[in-house]
């Protein structure tokens, strides 16, 4: 089910500003890929170019190729709305819809496509997704309550449940734990471990320990200097990046000599 992603020669712009330059890599299916790097090096920008969320920002555009499942993502015939259903996204700050209940939040994506859904079917999706996000037992008795009433970590897992409810193939996560306390962080990390058997997972993190803990492959992004575009310095198996990186700047970053 899950899918690999091939990226080649990707340049990403905000208007005239080249934010990320010349990235190429292959993200493996059913694995966790982590991106690390100092602030502003373009990790988020790159991640958002993988499900065409980048172009939501006015003036933003992309050059180069992102190939998912043999299809080029930026082909004119490709519908970005369809892309985003297949490649889900979880954001840095948990963002459940404030006016919806937990139940409605989980179904938000599904409701878009099929207005009429049998109650049983909907219940089924909600339970399956919440179980998938390890949240079912905590919220099953208050599904009608607002999603905003949950704790930060629970909200983040609710967002994950919402993302997997539409059955995407890839799950992109941009610093999903940075707004969370250590306990919630641990819960999310466990969840990522479980999810990877079904999904291709890409995660951005500013926490190198987290990258080391959860990922199979790691990409290190860096900036040559402030104002210069970010670029991919190294992309390797996580074990290699953290023990014996190819590039000296990777080593310097990981050992905390800058950033």
């Amino acid at each position: 089910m899950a899918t690999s992603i091939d990226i080649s020669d990707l340049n990403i712009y905000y208007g005239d500003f080249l934010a990320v330059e010349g990235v190429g890599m292959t993200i493996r299916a059913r694995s966790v890929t982590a991106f690390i790097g100092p602030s502003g090096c373009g990790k988020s920008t790159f991640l958002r170019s993988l499900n065409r969320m980048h172009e939501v920002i006015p003036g933003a555009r992309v050059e180069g190729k992102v190939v998912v499942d043999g299809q080029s993502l930026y082909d004119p015939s490709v519908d970005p709305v369809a892309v985003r259903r297949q490649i889900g996204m979880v954001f840095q700050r948990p963002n459940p819809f404030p006016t919806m209940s937990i139940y409605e939040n989980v179904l938000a994506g599904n409701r878009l496509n099929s207005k009429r859904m049998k109650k049983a079917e909907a219940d089924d999706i909600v339970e399956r997704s919440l179980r998938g996000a390890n949240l079912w037992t905590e919220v099953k008795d208050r599904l009608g309550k607002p999603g905003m009433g949950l704790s930060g970590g629970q909200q983040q897992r609710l967002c994950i449940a919402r993302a997997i409810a539409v059955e995407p193939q890839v799950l992109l996560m941009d610093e999903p734990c940075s707004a969370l306390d250590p306990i919630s962080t641990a819960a999310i990390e466990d969840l990522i471990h479980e999810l990877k058997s079904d999904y291709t997972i890409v995660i951005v993190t500013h926490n190198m320990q987290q990258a080391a803990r959860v990922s199979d492959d790691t990409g290190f992004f860096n900036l040559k200097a402030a104002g210069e575009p970010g670029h991919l310095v190294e992309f390797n198996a996580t074990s290699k990046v953290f023990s014996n990186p190819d590039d000296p700047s990777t080593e310097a970053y990981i050992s905390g000599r800058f950033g």
Partner: protein
Amino acid sequence: MSLLEERRPAAKPTAMPLVAPQIPAYAPWLAAVLAGGIAALAGLLLGWSLVAVVLVAWALLVVGLPAWSAAIEGERRAKDRLVTTIAWSTFALAMIPLASLAWEVVENGHAIISSEFLTYDMRGVLGAGGGIYHALMGTLIITALATAISVPIGVMAAIYLVEYGKGNRLARTITFLVDVMTGIPSIVAGLFAFALFTMIFGPGVRFGIGGAVALSVLMIPIVVRATEEMLKLVPEELREASYALGVPKWRTIVKVVLPTALGGIVTGVTLAIARVAGETAPLLIIVGTTTTLNLNPFDGRMATLPVFIFSSVTTGGKYDAEQTARAWGAALVLVAIVMTLNLLARAVGKVFAPKTGR
């Protein structure tokens, strides 16, 4: 997780349906041109008026484009296009009165504008001739007085709200009252000034300062709101930077906070001036009007542009045409003043804005 796998509905056509049929990017324009063309043709054949042609063209577009989209892109996209078309239509509709108004004011007002019109008053004028000098000066004097009353009070009150009151009961009450005050009908402000000065000076009182007081009632809340917003925008960090240098609070406000917010405050004040410069009702009640130049706001009626326009249009009589012409001329001048103030507000906001450099 294997559970997930099992319950998934049976094989989709492709693993990842990313491609969807789409109508071309120029479709909306094409649809608009087609709709316009069809309506114009029908209009020519059936002798419709221009309004009818436009309405029909619009209806065709609103129905046609989503229908085309629905046929090719599906219902969701079609709905999206429908809403987009309607949203832009509302904008076009909202522009009609503005365009018409601008056109009419310039068209009817430009002919009479001359140096005589701007430098003569109406003393001794019955038919053609005369000018709006007295009304222009009246508007300038009364607006300036209102500004002189409103700005210190408004800015200081905003400082209280943002820097001192911060969320206490009095501040919340004042914020609320200021909000409510923004909604005071202008005529009520005029009645207030009238009632106030009638009680002080007896019946029949009419003078410029009364108008300035009435306008202040309308202006103060605008100044407070604008200043408050601007002060709130000044980052807390700057205040803290100043405190951390051992600067007392009031000096921090005067030397750091106000200069930083100055651009916005000046913009807000200028907009407030523009707003009250065009007020008519309160001046009608408490200032009245006259044909002769009166530069003393503390004694007797003064002419002002808005009241001049109103009374020129509504007096009628033998010289109705001349009066109406003068009214349009005065309207052009008034609109020009107000628009200039608005433009100025923006320019000033930019000039005073903190230099961000980068």
